[in-house]
């Protein structure tokens, strides 16, 4: 409960003032929480009212997924760490604006994707566009060239770390616009409408890029998962 140290510096109650006395200790006493820890909306409400322990719980809950998302988009560990830090901090600063009409996690994903795209544009200003790549030569016929059976559960042929490394590699080979659309729609489960809004593109553009992304990934995974690979 690292954040209890911060909370204790601005006592707003007798309880917090008592904790302040403990601040100079190397491991400040954790704030007891009155929130049921498996309820996201209760955690968000508590964090909104200033319970930093509840916010820390939200960070702990989603840091792995947000880091993976940021890694997939930026393809750079240092950038992914920055994105994750900025996303959590912005979510905290803007908690008052979170209306609760979607899940907190979905809202956090939107923030993280925007941060990641900004990072990507800063790093490669001439290479990151949300427009369809004009040099993209993967037409549908090319994408459908490799048609092979993968068997029932091809991913089970790989250890978890090996599988993760394959997935990171193949998604990193996609142009940013395809990879972000795929991550939002298929991995994070964001709706087509919300994906269009987050990325500032039309709904037909989301659908067309999602299809291309899926076909490109299918083609790239084929060499790892086809049955003939292991027989």
């Amino acid at each position: 409960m690292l954040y209890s140290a911060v909370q204790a510096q601005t006592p707003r109650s007798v309880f917090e003032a008592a904790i302040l006395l403990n601040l100079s200790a190397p491991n400040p006493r954790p704030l007891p929480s009155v929130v049921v820890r498996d309820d996201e909306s209760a955690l968000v409400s508590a964090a909104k009212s200033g319970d930093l322990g509840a916010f820390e719980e939200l960070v702990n809950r989603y840091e792995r997924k947000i880091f993976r998302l940021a890694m997939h988009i930026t393809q750079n560990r240092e950038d992914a760490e920055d994105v994750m830090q900025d996303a959590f901090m912005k979510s905290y600063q803007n908690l008052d604006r979170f209306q609760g009409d979607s899940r907190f996690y979905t809202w956090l994903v939107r923030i993280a994707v925007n941060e990641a795209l900004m990072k990507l544009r800063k790093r490669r200003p001439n290479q990151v566009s949300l427009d369809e790549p004009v040099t993209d030569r993967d037409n549908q016929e090319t994408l459908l060239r490799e048609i092979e059976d993968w068997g029932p559960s091809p991913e089970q042929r790989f250890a978890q770390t090996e599988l993760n490394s394959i997935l990171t590699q193949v998604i990193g080979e996609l142009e940013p616009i395809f990879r972000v659309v795929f991550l939002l729609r298929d991995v994070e489960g964001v709706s087509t409408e919300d994906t269009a809004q987050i990325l500032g593109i039309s709904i037909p553009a989301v659908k067309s890029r999602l299809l291309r992304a899926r076909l490109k990934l299918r083609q790239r995974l084929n060499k790892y998962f086809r049955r003939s690979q292991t027989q």
Partner: protein
Amino acid sequence: MNCKRVIVELSSYLDGALDSGATADLERHLSNCSDCRLVVDTTRKTIQIFCNAEPVPLPSDVHDRLHQALLERLKRRIKKA
């Protein structure tokens, strides 16, 4: 429905967003076309594999840096207030 049409409708079919008539047409085509069946099957698996992959645990140094950075920023924010 022909093979080209199957590819055009592939995403909607996999997302369950195709109307019942078009779904029946597409499935009729799949029952006679092994290539399209394989494309549909492997594309579905592609999505499932990404969805089901568990994120690796956050390396402890990354976790520590995140929490330390947030702590520092929260402290600065509170000092300003």
